[in-house]
C-alpha cells in the first residue's frame, strides 16, 4: 500500500539538504546527500521494505547539482516517487527518473553556480567590505545576513515548489525567471564593486586622495592582468601581495 510523504518528512528532507555535500566523492558526487534527504519520505511512501530499498538504491546513482537549489530536485523527486508508488497516470519510469535527475543536475547546477557563486557571493562580500569600511564590526554581520536570508529562503521555496510542481519545476525556474535573477544580481554586484573604490580611497584613514587612487588603480590593474595572463592562480596572488607590500614599504 503506497502512501504520501508526510509534512514532517518533507521538513526532514529540507534539513538534510543542508548537509547535501557532506558525503561528496568523485564517484557519485552528491548521491549520498540526495539519498539521505529522500530517505524519510521514502519510508512514508513505501510500506514494503523491499520496494523502499529499491527506491533508495535508485537515488544512489550519480547526482550533481548546486547544493542550495538541490531542494528543487529533492521536492520534485519526492513527488515523482509518490506518483510512481501510487501508479498514477504519467508517473515516471526508472529510465525517465534517471533522465530527469540528470537534467535537474545540469539545469540547477548551472543556475546556482551563476546566481549564487558568481553573483550573490561577490555582491554580498563587497557590501560586507563596504560595511566594514564604515564600521569594522558590522562587516561580517552584513555579509552573513545579506547572503543567508535569500540562501535559506531559496532552499525552503525550492522544497515547496519542487513538491508542488513535480518534474514541472524545471521549466518554472530554469527559463526566463532564472536568467533575469542572474542578470540582476550581477548588475548589483557590478554597482557594489564600483562603489567600493571611492569608499576605500576617500576613507578618513586613506594615505591621501591621489596616492590612494594610484595605489588602488595600480593594484586593480595588476590583479586583473595577472589573473588573466597566468593560469597559476596561487602564484599570481602571491606576486600581487608582494607588489602591494613592496609599494607600502617604499612609500
Amino acid at each position, binding site marked *: 500500500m503506497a502512501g504520501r510523504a508526510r509534512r514532517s518528512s518533507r521538513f526532514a528532507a529540507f534539513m538534510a539538504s543542508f548537509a547535501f555535500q557532506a*558525503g561528496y566523492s568523485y*564517484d557519485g558526487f552528491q548521491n549520498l546527500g540526495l*539519498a539521505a534527504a529522500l530517505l524519510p519520505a521514502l519510508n512514508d511512501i513505501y510500506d514494503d521494505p523491499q520496494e523502499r530499498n529499491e527506491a533508495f538504491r535508485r537515488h544512489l546513482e550519480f547526482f550533481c547539482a548546486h547544493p542550495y537549489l538541490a531542494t528543487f530536485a529533492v521536492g520534485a523527486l519526492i513527488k515523482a516517487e509518490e506518483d510512481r508508488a501510487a501508479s498514477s497516470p504519467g508517473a515516471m519510469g526508472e529510465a525517465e527518473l534517471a533522465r530527469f535527475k540528470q537534467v535537474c543536475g545540469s539545469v540547477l547546477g548551472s543556475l546556482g553556480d551563476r546566481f549564487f557563486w558568481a553573483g550573490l557571493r561577490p555582491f554580498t*562580500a563587497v557590501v560586507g567590505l563596504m560595511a566594514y569600511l564604515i564600521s569594522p564590526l558590522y562587516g561580517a554581520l552584513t555579509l552573513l545576513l545579506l547572503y543567508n536570508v535569500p540562501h535559506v529562503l531559496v532552499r525552503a521555496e525550492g522544497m515547496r515548489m519542487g513538491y508542488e510542481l513535480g518534474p514541472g519545476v524545471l521549466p518554472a525556474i530554469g527559463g526566463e525567471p532564472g536568467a533575469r535573477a542572474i542578470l540582476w544580481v550581477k548588475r548589483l554586484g*557590478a554597482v557594489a564593486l*564600483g*562603489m567600493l573604490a571611492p569608499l576605500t580611497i576617500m576613507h578618513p584613514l586613506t594615505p591621501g586622495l591621489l596616492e590612494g587612487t594610484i595605489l588602488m588603480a595600480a593594484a586593480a590593474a595588476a590583479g586583473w592582468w595577472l589573473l588573466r595572463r597566468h593560469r597559476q592562480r596561487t602564484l599570481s596572488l602571491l606576486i600581487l*601581495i608582494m607588489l602591494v607590500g613592496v609599494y*607600502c614599504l617604499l612609500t
Partner: protein
Amino acid sequence: MSAWIVVAAAGAVAAVDTAAFFQGMFHQPLVICTLLGAGLGSPLEGAYLGALLQMLWLSELPVGAATYSDYGPAAAGAAGGALMVLQSGHADLGLAGLAVLLTAVPLAWVGGHIIRVQREIQSRFLPRVIASVERNRPGRVRWYILVGIGHSAIRGVVEAALTAAVALLLLWGLKALGLEGQIPPYALLAGMLGAGLGVTLKLFSGKEFLPWLAGGVMVGIITVVVL
C-alpha cells in the same frame, strides 16, 4: 594553549561550512576572522585581517569536481597565528597583515589538495551504504553523512593549526628583517582591496556591466560626500 583551541575551532567551523554543512559563508575570511578575533579578544584586528583576505578568492568558483583553494581554514589559521603575536605586543598590525597574506594564500592552495584527498577517501562510502541497504538498513547513510562532516572538521583543525604555526614563524621572521612599523595598515588594506577588485572584475567583465560599474563609482562618491 586556549588560543590554539580557539584557532582550531574556527578552522573546523570554516572547513565544515565550506562544503559539508550549511555553506552559509561563515568560511569567508571577513566573517571567520572577525569571529576568531572576537574569540581571542581582538575583534577589530581580526576583522582587519579578514578584510585584507576577503576579495582574493571571490572569482574562484567551487564548481563540480574542480580543485579550489580551501581559504576558510587558511584565513582562520593565519589570522590566529598573527593575532597571538599581536596580543603579545611583538608586532604591529601592518606587518601582521603582510604575514597573514603571505601565509594564507599558499596554505589555502595546499588545503584545496587536502579536500581532493578527502573526497577520494569518501569514495569508499558508497559500497558500504549499498551493503547496508542489502542488510535492510538504509538509515546507515546518515552515519556516513556525519562521518563526512567529521572529516571536514578534522581537515579544518589540521589546516588551521598548521597555518597558524607558519604565520607565527613568518611574522617573527619578518620582524627579524627589521620590517616592524614599516607597513601602514590602511595602505596595505587599500592596496589589497584594489588588487581584489582587479581579481573579481573577471566576474563582471562583460560590456553590459560597465555602465553599472561606472554608476557604482558615482554612487560611491556621492555616498562618501554625503556621509
